[in-house]
């Protein structure tokens, strides 16, 4: 009997034999989408440097992807990634992180690097909860939801992270759910090729800390809900704000051109060198 090997297994660090993710976690879908995108573009992982922060989704490439990975402090991966991109501009730099890491503790780095429009890909696994620490409210948790730190329901307005990043100046922004694995892969491919700051929000299920505690159900139930609630950007444009309440607008929200920071730096350096001569 021949051994069946997953076609993406060659991208996995040899010593890694098991996953740290809980059963039903959306991380696996995102991980496969990333690796498929790399593979379909004809690239290898050696073309990339991965950077992560703290939280479940930081463990997508760390240690699983067989590539240079910098697993950093909570909220700061984009700031570390900026330094890496400055040193290795020819490499693709990708950050995978969660909504807590990117939109709460690390919000400042997210908006400022979107503003800088430095070429990198940031994939935000948005599960609306702090999973690793046991189900506390995130800045993305829907209003009224009972969590470990909001036992009487949340009383804060949630962030729309994609809208935040768009407003800050990112040149490629897409939102999909884990139900949209193929669309997600296609958007990651575009993001990798984009000369600018690319942000992809992946609405993902945390069946353990979100599903169970809020009554949203199992991973399968949550993904079914994503399917039902999702509406393509094109269709959403026909509906009013009230009609869109509770829906998840998916698609490529922004794909535009703007000056990219590294290109601007190179232009500046040439000017400085010219002045010198």
């Amino acid at each position: 009997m021949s051994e069946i090997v997953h076609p993406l297994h060659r991208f996995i660090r040899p010593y890694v034999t098991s996953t740290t993710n809980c059963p039903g976690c959306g991380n696996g879908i995102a991980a496969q989408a990333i690796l498929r995108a790399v593979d379909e573009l004809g690239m290898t992982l050696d073309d990339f440097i991965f950077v992560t922060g703290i939280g479940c989704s930081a463990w997508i490439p760390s240690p699983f992807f067989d590539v240079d990975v910098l697993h950093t402090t909570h909220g700061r991966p984009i700031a570390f990634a900026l330094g890496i991109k400055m040193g290795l501009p020819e490499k693709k730099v990708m950050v995978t992180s969660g909504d807590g890491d990117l939109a709460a503790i690390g919000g400042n780095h997210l908006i400022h690097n979107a503003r800088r429009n430095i070429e990198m890909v940031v994939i935000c696994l948005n599960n609306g909860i702090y999973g690793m620490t046991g189900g506390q409210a995130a800045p993305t948790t829907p209003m009224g939801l009972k969590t470990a730190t909001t036992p009487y329901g949340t009383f804060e307005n949630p962030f729309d992270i994609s809208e935040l990043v768009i407003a800050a100046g990112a040149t490629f922004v897409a939102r999909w759910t884990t139900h949209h694995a193929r669309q997600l892969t296609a958007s990651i491919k575009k993001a990798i090729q984009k000369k600018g700051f690319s942000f992809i929000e992946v609405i993902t299920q945390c069946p353990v800390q979100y599903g169970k505690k809020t009554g949203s159900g199992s991973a399968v139930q949550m993904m079914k809900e994503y399917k039902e609630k999702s509406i393509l950007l094109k269709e959403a444009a026909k509906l009013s704000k009230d009609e869109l309440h509770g829906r998840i607008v998916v698609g490529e929200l922004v794909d535009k051109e703007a000056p990219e920071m590294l290109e601007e730096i190179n232009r500046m350096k040439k000017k400085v060198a010219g002045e010198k001569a």
Partner: protein
Amino acid sequence: MKGTRVQTGKYFMMGNTACAEGALAAGCDFAAGYPITPATEIANRLAERLPQVGGMFLQMEDEISSIAAIIGASWTGKKVMTATSGPGISLMLENLGFAIGVETPCVIVNVQRGGPTTGMPTAGVPADMVQPKRGSHGDYEIIALCPASPQEMFEHTVLAFNFAEKYRVPVFILSDAFVGHMREEVVIPEAGRIEIVNRKVTEIGTDPQKVKGFLDEDVAPMPIFGRGFRSHVTSSCHDEYGKRNLSDLTALDNFIRKLSDKILKHKEDIVRVERDYEGAEVVLVSYGAVSRAAKMAAIRAREQGLPVGTLRLITPWPFPSEEIEEMARKAKKVIVLENNLGQMYPFIKAEAACHADVSFLPPRVIGEIQDPEAILNRIREVMK
């Protein structure tokens, strides 16, 4: 001269400018920072000078991202630095621990000012002397240098880069607004006369499975990014290969000890003091700007026939315990001079008190340097 790394010559130069020139001379490629008094001149100079030599300075959104960006760039093989003051260091402390934990060469300059909190930004107060050693969480060792002049702002910055590269550690410059804003003669030697150390890097072609890139007391070669080492670099507890281990306490013990021993084992190479206490009964112990007042007081005392000497700590960290004990054995009285409420005093006293009488002399007003006359009065008092 414009556009060359080493601006050889004799200058009347501000300490902060000399620091930036020292960074360039040492090979700094990338710096990131956030404006703050009294350190801003370093950023200003780096922003002008680094692009001239193919490098780059980035102004970040805060000090947290400043240190994060330089650590990221260091992992691509660049020599890196950030400069700030106390409030900025407070924000950097978490990522300082990161740099220590994953063994990242970088230089952090603290041009200290009067604190706590916003305090008095232009006051030259060495207010954060223990912060680099104890500020970040966990057990660790740190290297810090304490310049006393613009010339040393240049020289110590070069030395800081060399230590950072040699030991794969963050290295602090603990300057203050006195020294940072002081203008004095600065001599920048020819490039060939400046000793430069470059980090050991894993050999290209090494099998990624066999890269032992961490936790060697004698400093593992750095498996920098982009060269096919497929390095897994995590600030979680890890082994010599960088492999995370979150369950075995012996792995944590090894992680903590090896990082610390990297510095402690090489204290002899790192620790620097300035001794001038031959035959002295009273020794003035100080560092940084205050050491200038101590020196002057010692000269005047000797002119008056009093047997007074000085010991200056150039590296407050790692703490020069042996050097202080050796001094205390020979002295009868030790006076510790600091321009604060006595931050290093308990550490110095702990080493010296079993051999000599140790006392502390702050300035009349914190932020003023001790008046040499006041020091002389104290010398006469302790000699009674």
